């Protein structure tokens, strides 16, 4: 789904719908709180929202959530840098050699639909139970969209721009750096954005599964200690971080788009 498909972006100045959405969310939380306090819902299965909100402070003071956040962010950053360098380079090479592109593009697309995250036990054997396993999982899951979008971006460069480059007798290298790459940059960034989202999902997921690292491990730790309110608060924190991350990437993509 592209940002153009989102119905809430061009909503004008009418805030009634977002207010209804937010109001429904608050009403839902209040209803859950009431149902738990009455005793219709077991508080040892679903903790009251007030307890979850109160646990947020504890996450910062006792669970060092900020340190964990930066740990996860660091893993995502390394995976992101690796995937940007490798994905764009592979995409450029594949687009440059048409035969290679025709031979491998379907494989790359198939690679994207494969459940790659399930290979995490394999990388635990190769790298051990450490951050590299997590980074590699993030890297692998993010690679396909970056490659495919790089190919799409460079292939989609307007003919007139390429002809302008030819009329100036640019060399192949100059043609790439001065025409093709700048023209493809917004599409490449769409790929990097998708890749970073996949990387974040897989980094946090792998942290949770192998019980190592930052935010994913925190959720696992709290759940194993049966700290219900803390577990729910940590999950909310991860959702909040993810949402802010996606919004930031979307804004960066919109900022980059006028370059095309």
């Amino acid at each position, binding site marked *: 789904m592209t940002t153009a498909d989102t*119905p809430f972006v061009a909503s004008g100045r009418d805030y009634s719908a*977002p207010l209804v959405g937010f109001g429904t969310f608050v009403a839902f939380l209040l209803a859950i709180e009431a149902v738990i306090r009455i005793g219709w819902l077991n508080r040892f*299965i679903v903790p009251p929202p007030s307890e979850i909100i109160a646990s947020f402070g504890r996450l910062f003071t006792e669970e060092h959530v900020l340190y964990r956040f930066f740990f996860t962010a660091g893993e995502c950053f390394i995976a992101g840098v690796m995937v940007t360098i490798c994905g764009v380079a592979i995409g450029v090479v594949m687009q440059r050699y048409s035969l290679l592109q025709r031979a491998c593009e379907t494989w790359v697309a198939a690679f994207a639909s494969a*459940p790659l995250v*399930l290979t995490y036990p394999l990388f635990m054997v190769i790298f051990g139970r450490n951050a590299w396993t997590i980074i590699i999982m993030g890297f692998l899951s993010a690679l396909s969209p970056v490659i495919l979008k790089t190919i799409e971006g460079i292939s989609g460069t307007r003919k007139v721009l390429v002809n302008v480059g030819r009329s100036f007798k640019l060399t192949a290298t100059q043609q790439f750096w001065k025409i093709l790459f700048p023209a493809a940059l917004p599409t490449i960034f769409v790929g990097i954005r998708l890749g970073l989202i996949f990387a974040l999902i897989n980094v946090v*997921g792998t942290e949770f599964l192998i019980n190592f690292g930052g935010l994913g491990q925190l959720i696992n730790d709290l759940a194993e200690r049966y700290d219900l309110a803390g577990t729910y608060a940590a999950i909310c924190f991860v959702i909040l971080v*993810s949402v802010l991350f996606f919004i930031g990437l979307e804004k960066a993509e919109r900022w980059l788009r006028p370059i095309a």
Partner: protein
Amino acid sequence: MAETDRLSQTTVASPVISPVTLLRIAIILAVLAAWEFLAHSGWLYRDVVPSLLSIGRAMAALLTDRNYYFNLGVTAAEIGVALAIGGSAGLAVGLILGANRFLSRAFEPYLYYLGPTPKIIFFPVMIMWFGVGPESKVALGTLSCFFPVALNVAAGMRQIDKVLIRVGRSFRANTWQMVQKIHLPAMRHPIINGIRLGLGFALIGTLLAETKLSNKGIGFLIIQTYSIFDMPAMYAMLIVLFVLAIGANALIGKLGGLDSIKRN
């Protein structure tokens, strides 16, 4: 006539194996040769990269093992139930949000931003709610596949040709008839696309949950091979799983006619 001549010349001139196929074969052979070299090089711990022969043997043993098919059945059933529940819920929510602009603006942002969050982190909650059995895996699979289906259906609903809707209204179709005769047929491709994505997410969610806490299913078998360091079996399982996942994805696309989309 000239066209026939041109086609026959092309047929005669084309080699038996196209350059693309030749390159593919060359790449596959190079990868296999590199793998075999790495397996015997001693650069990695023994069995981390097992020889192709031992992977082949493990795969043959896997495909003739009844226990594997039992576990495959368990996982397939969990994914099937997850897809049925999550897909139906996603379809219903997508139809409602796609049909009503106000509701879409009120609630779709939540779906849009919650959709790409890592669902596996909800697994502890699912265990508390549904226990450690297959139900919690189904629940995680359901949650994973709900979002892509709902978002695709809602987006597809908004892209329906307005002429079709006007035709339905001019025939005085009621809401159910509009859904049945206009909306659903016009949205076949977004729905199939949503289900394809949903299947992928349900598969990942269910299998990851199985690797975390389970005593049956393919995810359990994979983590068991890790525990006993049976690397050839792990590679064999992953290969079979990848083939099944990609095959199922392609099959849904083919059944839904995604390969034959024609836009005039």
